[in-house]
């Protein structure tokens, strides 16, 4: 992807983010943080590609570290968010 296209995505997504997040009520700010944390674990996508690299052992090592960290983020983040939100839903 060329740089300008990436920059366009980046800037537009920030505007979208601002619009979306300002509507989240303060009651849900903690789940918002853990949930957005889980979403930022999307780095896992890049990590998987690095860890599956067959050419360089160094790339694989950092890929492995990245997969572990990002998976903690994804699994831990979504699960803990779910746990919190279930408490809000109860009543």
């Amino acid at each position, binding site marked *: 992807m060329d740089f300008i296209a990436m920059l366009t995505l980046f800037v537009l997504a920030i505007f979208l983010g601002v619009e979306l997040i300002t509507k989240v009520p303060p009651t849900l700010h903690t789940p918002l943080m853990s949930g957005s944390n889980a979403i930022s674990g999307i780095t896992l996508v890049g990590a998987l590609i690095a860890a*599956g690299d067959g050419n360089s052992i160094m790339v694989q090592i950092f890929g492995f570290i990245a997969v572990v960290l990002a998976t903690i983020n994804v699994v831990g983040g979504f699960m803990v968010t779910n746990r919190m939100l279930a408490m809000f839903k109860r009543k």
Partner: protein
Amino acid sequence: MHLADHWLNIAYLIAASLFVFGIKGLTKPRTAVRGNQMAASGMLIACVVTLFHRDIVGYEVIIAGLVIGGLIGAIMAIRVQMTSMPQMIALLNGFGGGASFAVATAGYLGGLSGAVALISTGAAVLIGAVTLTGSMVAFAKLQELISGKSIGFAGMKFVNALLLLGSLCAIGYLVVEPGNQMVFWALVVAAALLGLMLVLPIGGADMPVVIALLNSYSGVAASAAGFVTGNSALIITGSLVGASGLILTQIMCKAMNRSLTNVLFGVMAEAGSSMSDDEVYQGKVKSSSADEVAMILETAQRVVIVPGFGMAMAQAQHAVRELADTLEKRGTEVEYAIHPVAGRMPGHMNVLLAEAEVSYDKLKDMDTINPTFEQTDVAIVIGANDVTNPLAREDKGSPIYGMPILNVDKARTVVVVKRSLSSGFAGLPNPLFAKDNTLMLFGDGKQAIIDISTALKEA
């Protein structure tokens, strides 16, 4: 089997859309669980299709990483206590930053070319490493492994400026000479140090801002990693999260009447005419008992409960709910007043009270509840201090002047449950404790609330 790039990109687009729907779901407690599930399914789609990427030749390392990370994440999520949620978020922020850092490093070691890719790598390494080490310091402070007070030395800002400048120069140098690995590792070390040094001087009261800001960084780092690999999913998602953290940071700063730069550099406003504890409290503080408080509550029509970090410390949220139930059974109206920076992170009190099964529509934010204090018979302040300090409203010389507070002193009677008269994070005496209509109930928050409930039930 490998999927062509355009199929992958379409799958990423679907994933990103599901993330957007997910965050949209978070705008209402009713739809939030479903929103979270949608976001999670988006993540699953993105990861599964990536496994068919043409550059992936072996799966051993991937499976090992997924299993280890998944286990650690699941155990953390199941075992963490709601009171420890700020630490958990700090850790997750750090891991997110660390993952982006590691992806960028792997990308660099795999051989990169072109100014855009190299600058993005530099940015991802810098922001990722700062987020990683900064979050670890925040975690250590919240977990009380190290002192929550500001830690620093003279000239720290100068050193930080040098580290940042050095990092930027290293990134610039890498663009000219990408093969120089020494420069790359120097950048890593400088960024890691910078993360440590940026968070060490920040005190406990400012933690909500720091956590929100590191949350934002972890998103920006993911975005930068997306620029490295040309991955639209990372760019979109990273900037969504970056925006989210930034908005929360702004809300927190506004609620403390501090500018972001003040928080970041650990600056507190200079005290003008600050009074000593003795001047404020001498002979004016009335110590009360659970029985006396229960007697006042017996005739109360409306009670507002004001929780703070002390409630979390004492694990008193269930006891508080119990007391509210007892009051409601007697026909008393009970609401909760939540200051935006009560606790150690945005929404901390809400989560604790939700854990104790308090209905979320009883949790009122500052602007909603403030006009109602005048019609409130009893305000029960439990473990909150600075966010109720009238100096913020009245004393122009006070360091916290201008900070929006909960006007609990306007209630007919104020009951403050607290261990002692010690000051809050701001280090100021609180004239609220010496007011005519204030009763102090000294002791452990949880026990004190249980005692009031018991006395009230016997009445």
